[in-house]
Every structure is written in structure tokens, then in C-alpha cells.
């Protein structure tokens, strides 16, 4: 009897712990979302009255509009370039044996270890040196460097899940290497490529630290514009932008899930 009570208490507290952890995961988004609807012109929680006027301000504020556009341009370029470059490197790492392979792998994954502000600072110094500072090219390059390791990982894992015998079978049936790539490898790799691109896009869209160094007034991305805003104002506009951010990212993931299944996109399940 006592033992049963014990197990019940243990079971209950276990569930409580899991519930608390999950609550903490969504807590920041929850607080910010509520704050965005605060009627008063101050970032506070809990809100005193409800209003959507901060959303209107967020969408019309000039710096945010420019920042959003810049972010979309930079993200599109950076994630696409990173996908192309990363796919090439992933195939090289997976399929070929060559000298200094370990070294190449280390270099390619090094942006994971190097702090983003170091990357930003380094590129800023370099770009100033060659007179290309604060241009879009430098911002895109910065983002490519930051997201490349994630693209390579994603594509590499997808490649690992392709049975090379499928390609051998295709070759034995008369398919030249180019046709094997087009009819077997790429179609089977497509979910991996898409997930790699999606990761890159989300990371790039959210990148702040490195961007702070390499962007200028004309090229500042949305996170940088938000940082600039919060240094001057303390009204809930920033919270409203955050909510828009969350909504856009969630929409992207939902689309991905609808067309491909989240498991595939996130490389969680790799059943064939």
C-alpha cells in the first residue's frame, strides 16, 4: 500500500518536472507574445490592456521594413549559396577518399567553434581592408560561413542514408554517372537538400551577432534593426516584431511539414 503511494508520488512529480521543462521552453515566446498586445507604451508583463497598435507600428516603421527586406534578400542568397557549396563538400566528404580529408572536415565545421562575433569582426576588418565594407556581398558571405556547417551536416546525413547499391544497380542497368545523379541520387537526396536549405534559411534569418559587425545603415538585417530599436525605444513594437518572426518561421516549418513531413525535413526518421 505504502509502496503504491510512493510510486504514485514519484510518477506525479516526474510528470510535473517534464511539464515544467516544457513550460520553460515556450515561456519566453509566451511572455513576449502577451507583451506585444500590451496597450501601454512600455514593455512589461503582465499587460495592462490589450491592443494591436504595436503590430501596425512594427509593419510601418521604416527601419523594420528595410530590415525585413534586407533579411529576406540576404537569407535567400546565403541559404541557396550555402546549399550549393555545402552539397558539393558533403558529397566529397562522403564519397571520396583523399589526402587531408580530416583537415577539410575540420575547416568546414570550424564556424561551429568560432564565435559569431569573431567571424563578424574578422570579415569586417577584411572587408574594410579591401574597401568592400558594409556591402551586401560581405553580409551574404558572413551568413554563408555561419550556416555552412549545418547544411553540410544535413546533406551528409541524407547521403549516408542512400544505399550506394542503388547507384551501382543503376550503373549496371546502363545509366551513365550523370544520369545516375539525376535519376537516383538527387531524387533520393531531395528531402535532405530541402531540409539543409530550410535550416540554413532559418539560421540566416535569425543571425544577429556576426551581422551586427558587417551591416551598415543600408544593409542592416531585421535582427540588427531590432537591436537598434530597443536601444532607443522601450515600447512593445519589438515584441510585436518578435511575434511576426515566430509566426513566419512557424509558417515555413508548417509548409515544409505539409509537403515533406517534419520527420524527413529534420532528418529524424530515415526509414526507406
Amino acid at each position, binding site marked *: 500500500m505504502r509502496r503504491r503511494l510512493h510510486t504514485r508520488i514519484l510518477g506525479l512529480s516526474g510528470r510535473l518536472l517534464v511539464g515544467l521543462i516544457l513550460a520553460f521552453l515556450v515561456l519566453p515566446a509566451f511572455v513576449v507574445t502577451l507583451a506585444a498586445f500590451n496597450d501601454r507604451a512600455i514593455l512589461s508583463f503582465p499587460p495592462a490592456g490589450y491592443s494591436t497598435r504595436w503590430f501596425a507600428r512594427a509593419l510601418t516603421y521604416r527601419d523594420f521594413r528595410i530590415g525585413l527586406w534586407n533579411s529576406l534578400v540576404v537569407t535567400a542568397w546565403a541559404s541557396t549559396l550555402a546549399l550549393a557549396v555545402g552539397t558539393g563538400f558533403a558529397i566529397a566528404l562522403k564519397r571520396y577518399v583523399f589526402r587531408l580529408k580530416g583537415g577539410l572536415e575540420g575547416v568546414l565545421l570550424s564556424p561551429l567553434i568560432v564565435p559569431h562575433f569573431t567571424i563578424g569582426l574578422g570579415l569586417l576588418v577584411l572587408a574594410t581592408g579591401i574597401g568592400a565594407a558594409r556591402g551586401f556581398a560581405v553580409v551574404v558571405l558572413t551568413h554563408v560561413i555561419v550556416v555552412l556547417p549545418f547544411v553540410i551536416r544535413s546533406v551528409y546525413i541524407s547521403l549516408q542514408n542512400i544505399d550506394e547499391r542503388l547507384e551501382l*544497380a543503376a*550503373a*549496371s542497368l546502363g545509366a551513365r554517372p550523370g544520369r545516375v545523379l539525376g535519376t537516383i541520387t538527387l531524387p533520393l537526396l531531395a528531402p535532405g537538400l530541402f531540409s539543409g536549405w530550410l535550416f540554413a534559411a532559418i539560421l540566416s534569418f535569425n543571425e544577429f551577432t556576426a551581422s551586427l559587425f558587417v551591416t551598415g545603415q543600408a544593409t542592416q538585417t531585421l535582427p540588427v534593426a531590432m537591436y537598434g530599436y530597443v536601444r532607443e525605444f522601450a515600447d512593445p513594437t519589438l515584441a510585436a516584431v518578435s511575434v511576426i518572426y515566430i509566426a513566419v518561421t512557424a509558417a515555413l516549418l508548417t509548409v515544409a511539414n505539409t509537403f515533406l513531413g517534419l520527420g524527413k525535413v529534420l532528418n529524424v526518421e530515415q526509414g*526507406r
Partner: protein
Amino acid sequence: MLSKAADRSPPASLPGTAANPRPVPAVRLDGVVKRFGAATALEETWLRVEQGEFLTLLGPSGCGKTTLLNLMAGFLEADAGEIFIGGDLVTSTPAYEREIGIVFQNYALFPHMSVAKNVGYGLRMRGVPRREIAERVDAALALVKLSGFSDRSPRQLSGGQQQRVALARALVIRPKVLLLDEPFSALDKNLRGAMQVELKEIQRRLGVTTVFVTHDQSEALSLSDRIVVMSAGRVRQTGTPDEVYRHPQDRFVAGFIGDVNLLPASLLARAGERATVAIRDLRRDVEAATLRGCAVGEEVDVFVRPDHLAVRQAGEAGTLPARVAALVYQGSHIDLHADLAEGGRVVVRMPGQGALATYAPGTPVGLVVPQGGLAAFPARDAAPSPLPQGPPDSRPSSLPPEPGSTR
């Protein structure tokens, strides 16, 4: 009637020359060698596969049989030697120009294509007109009894059905050679038997030259026209199933093909092709060829099949003294495990049920050793013993334990 240790065609007899009266072989390997780094996966190998032949490459994991298959397919490049397919030199021809069909152990069906698209893939790559593709795909699916499965996804098929699709896909291109890489090992036992019979029928009907890779000696014995027994990157013996079963030329072959017992003996005399050995006080006649380099008086090992031994009363004249260790019921037969007086355990395979009651463990018995069907090899040969060691319930089989990859 004796098989050669390896098919050593002299390099001078090029295909098509007047010096070679034999027809052009479907596949010919002339001194092919393959190394992976410092390890030699395949030592110098000479091999002919005749037109329409069903040839099996048999050996344990890592013996080089899959390497040999990959060399024929063009998936690997030989480090030395030449490969001919249908008389054409293909040593450096890429796989996509060799016109071979291959069925892998896991079938390797394209998961993003329907059954019909899988089967038609090779025809599409060849630019065959669409209408002809449809006809030939239908015919190939009918051949493997899968008509009506065209639109299914490979995922929706059972293992046996997937294998049929893989076979149809390989055959529809009318390959010069069909390569089968352990195609049955993923099937359950009942299905395996049925698929083997079916494969053999299809192969005979189409007359397609087939090279079959397996580690399963019973599969090899039942399907093949000829068997190439391989071990440690070398061809040990090439011959018909009967030749390799009854006249092993090599200690490894004797131990690998079928179940065997090993009896300690000594070489008494040698005269031409024959030799006499003494197993205790029993004198037996064996082939001398396998005792090369063995002097009279030296110890030899005599190999005898479990079903060639018989059990008699202890002390009966002309028998080997032994003591019953265990009886293992096997359904169609009974395996009697007995310990020889001079050490070592043997298995006697007895048909019928009566033996169960007659021989309790510990009973002294006499073993009858047949006059023929024996093979002897020098005892100092360091090769893994084919004797069943360990508990009596371990099967007296010399099969390798794991059917894994043999790269």
C-alpha cells in the same frame, strides 16, 4: 573426372585464335588481382564461365567472392590481369557499358519508382521506344509471376516479391551475364527453397549465363553447374558439385563442402595415383594427389562424411572403437556423436528412428569406416579443423557463422 585446383588457361590461348578450339566463354578472367591497400582481396585468379552456365562462387565471408563479382560487374577495377565478357576485353570498361544484370542481397530496388519503372529503368537508359519498354516490362513481370504489380511501390512488396522485381529488372535488358550476390540470404527458409527452384527454372529457360555468389554450400550444391570454392582470396577448387563434394582437392574444400569428420591416420604406402593410409589398424585406399609432400609414415587426416560412417557393436572386427557421447534428433535423421578412443569426436548420421533407444550415452560402439569416399590430407596442414568441437548439440556443420558482407 578430377577437377583442377584452378582453371589455368595459358595466356597464349586468346579468344578466337585457332589454338583455342573451345567456344568463346561468357566471362573470362586472366590472372586478375585485386588489392585494397596492403591487403590482397583477390590473388591471381584464372577463370572461365561458359555460355549458359550456372557458376557459383562459394566461400566464407571475406574469401574474395564478392570482390570477384564486383570486378565482373565493373564496380571495382582490377590491379592486374584482364577480364573478358563475351570475348570482348572489358578490364577498364565502366559498369554502365558492360551489359550485365545484377541482383543484390537487399535487391536495391529504387524506392522512388513503381515496380514497372524499376523494371523499365535499364530500357529507358538505352533509349528503347516507350511502347517496346511497356511490352518488355510486361513480359519480364510475367516471367517472374508478378503481372498486375506494375503500379505498386517496392515498399508495398514482400521480400520474395521484391526479389522477383530485382530479377526482372536485371533480365529485361537481356544481359550478357546475370550476377547474383547472395540473393536468397534475406528470405526465410521456406520461401528460399521455392525461389531457388524458380530461379533455376528461369535461368534454364532463358539460357542466361549466371554467376551466383553464396556462402551457403547446400545452395551451391543444389543450383550450380559448376562451383568455384574460394577461401582467403584464392580459388581452391573448381568443379561440378559432385566433384567438389566427392573429390575435394584441398583440405579447406573438404571441410567447407558438406559436413565432415576427421580421423587421425598415418600414410602407409603410395603407388602412383593411389595411396594407402592406416586408421588405427584399418587400411584404406585414398587418392594420392591430395597427399603431395607427405612422406610414408607421416601423420595424415582422413576426411569422411557423417552419412558414410555406420555404427556396430563394440569390438566387432574391422571397426574403430568409440564411445557414444550424445544422440541428436534431427527429424529426418539422427546424429550420433561419438568420442574416438584416441581422442577426437565424430558424428555418424543415421537414418531411421530405432537408434534412439539402442545407444545410450556412454555405450561403447564400433564405427565402420567405408572403403571408398575418403579423402586424406597432410596432418601438419594448419587449417581450421572441420570437426564439431564443443557440445554435441552444435551441428556438425562447417558453415561460417555470419552471412555478412564479404568485401
